[in-house]
């Protein structure tokens, strides 16, 4: 066996060494581009998914989200709940949110959105919205008559730039009217406009908790949700279990729980696109390798016959062609890896601008190994078949160059 491998490698190496350089380089470049394509799309998809996950944690749910029990609309006695959660080991801070429907009006333009209230000092501990101010400043405790708008709510003066109904380009310092669903109407000065690039978050409106109590007309002990930020490095599931074990009867979900289902469907759709793209890439690689080896084996039919005539086993002859294919694949994947790394560096410096944010492709080694294995297996098969077809030919027919 070892002897066969030695001869196989010897023949393959000499063929590569003394065969056409231009053809070899072309084959390597084709495999490199196929490999790059196989890596790039999954890395963009992974990057987009990571961006979505980050946006969810940073602006929407924090690490753990507590929502009302199954048949309840609100979480009751929220102050007690906050006090309890803030004492749980692993919890950094909990922040309550209370949302009430409202219609915002500015110069005849109206937008109907839930108006969400929070304690600004708590909110800055659990989300990063305060770091994404496009203009103005974030809310502070004790602010009255001031409101915080998402970028899509504020909108732009040129309506064609807006994805959704907006206030048509309201700016910091402008006054808007808010008609709440309980019938109360108030004027607010826009204190800040934030832009997270998350569609959901940038279509939100925030008020300080105390301001919402003014609207309700009494002290508010209800919340529509509680966002919980955990200490760095802790296991979210462990903290979730602790919260439940502290007797919290509301629905407690980690951000992954919240996204499961919703994101899985999106990822599945992405994966279908990815698999189609990968299949096309593989088919290209297989066809290229098949054509290369067919041409090479047909061209060398006589030499294959000679090799068999002098006593070289058919398996060795086939093996030498497959070895050449694997060598082309190896160099192609190395070149493809280099190209993809250069692209990663480029995209890190200049991320892909998606409507939902800037996506930096995320390169995963597992994906790379899987794709490499897939490419090698497909290429080896694509090289084996034509080599086998020619090598099994009758020796004399091969030497005479007859098909």
């Amino acid at each position, binding site marked *: 066996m070892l*002897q066969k491998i*030695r*001869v196989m490698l*010897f*023949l393959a190496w*000499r*063929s590569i*060494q*003394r*065969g056409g350089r231009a053809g070899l380089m072309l084959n390597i470049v084709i495999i490199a581009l196929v490999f790059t394509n196989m890596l790039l799309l999954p890395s963009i998809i992974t990057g987009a998914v990571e961006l979505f996950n980050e946006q969810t944690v940073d602006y929407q749910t924090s690490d753990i989200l507590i929502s009302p029990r199954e048949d309840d609309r609100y979480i009751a006695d929220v102050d007690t709940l906050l006090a309890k959660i803030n004492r749980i080991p692993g919890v950094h801070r909990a922040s309550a949110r209370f949302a009430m429907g409202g219609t915002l009006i500015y110069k005849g333009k109206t937008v109907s959105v839930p108006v969400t209230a929070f304690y600004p000092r708590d909110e800055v501990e659990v989300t990063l919205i305060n770091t994404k101010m496009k203009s103005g400043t974030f809310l502070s405790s004790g602010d009255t008559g001031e409101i915080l708008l998402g970028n899509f709510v504020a909108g732009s003066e040129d309506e064609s730039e807006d994805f959704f109904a907006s206030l048509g380009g309201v700016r910091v310092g402008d006054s808007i009217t808010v008609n709440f669903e309980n019938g109360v109407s108030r004027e607010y000065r826009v204190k800040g406009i934030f832009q997270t690039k998350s569609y959901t978050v940038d279509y939100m409106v925030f008020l300080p908790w105390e301001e919402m109590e003014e609207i309700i007309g009494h002290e508010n002990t209800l919340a529509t949700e509680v966002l919980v930020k955990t200490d760095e490095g802790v296991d979210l599931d462990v903290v979730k279990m602790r919260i439940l074990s502290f007797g919290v009867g509301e629905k407690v979900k980690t951000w992954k729980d919240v996204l499961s289902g919703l994101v899985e469907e999106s990822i599945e759709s992405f994966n279908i696109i990815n698999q189609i793209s990968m299949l096309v890439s593989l088919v290209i690689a297989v066809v290229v390798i098949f054509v290369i080896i067919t041409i090479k084996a047909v061209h060398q039919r*006589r*030499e294959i016959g*000679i*090799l*068999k*005539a*002098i*006593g*070289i*086993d*058919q398996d*060795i002859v086939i093996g030498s062609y497959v070895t050449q294919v694997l060598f082309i694949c190896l160099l192609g994947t190395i070149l493809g890896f280099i190209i993809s790394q250069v692209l990663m560096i480029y995209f890190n410096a200049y991320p892909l601008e998606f409507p939902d944010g800037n996506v930096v492709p995320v390169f995963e080694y597992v994906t790379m190994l899987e794709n490499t294995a897939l490419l090698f297996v497909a290429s080896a098969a694509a090289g084996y078949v034509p080599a086998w077809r020619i090598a099994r030919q*009758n*020796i*004399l027919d091969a*030497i005479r160059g007859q098909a």
Partner: protein
Amino acid sequence: MITVEDLERVYLMGKVEVHALRGVSLSVKQGEFLGVTGESGSGKSTLLHLVGILDQPTAGRVLIDTTDVYRLSAEEQSRFRLGRIGFVFQEYALIQELTALENVYLPSLAAGNSHRDHEEHAGAILEKVGLEGRLNHLPRELSGGEQQRVAIARALVNNPGILLADEPCANLDSENSRNIMDIFADINRETGQTIMMVSHEAWHRPYFHRIIRLRDGRIVDAGDVSDDGKR
């Protein structure tokens, strides 16, 4: 010793059966230098190919020493060709991507000899056929006569008991042809290898111990050259 018994080979050319060999029987002694002659299409190359296990007979058998070679599996036949038979083709039949030295040591490498052994041995054989200065040349850099000498060296590298040559001088000029024939004669004399050579050339006759002549797939003359006093 080669024993051929009732060997037949029928080719199908479309729907027409072509009888290349029609029951050929023959014995070649160890160390004999046998010439195989006959007109074009008489079956001499077919006979050589069947003795060299390059083809499959329609009927009959070929025994080399005591081995019925067509009862061996394909892999065993390969091993047998590698170790026991050297074949020299009319058109050199060298591997174009290998140098003269590599072409010669390839069968040795396949036979499992150590790297140093097969390189040294191949070099020595090439030296013996007068190519000591051309070891690292590719076939396209060699003349026809040199390529044929490389092919002979390759056939000899595993020290096979039998050397089969199918019109090895057909594409060579007279000087190169004579050199090649001298090499065969030297090999036969020095190593005692059995040689079976297909030849058209009348001037080759003195080299052979015996000549058989084929016509229409049958041996029509199995005379001994030595008896004619030509050698």
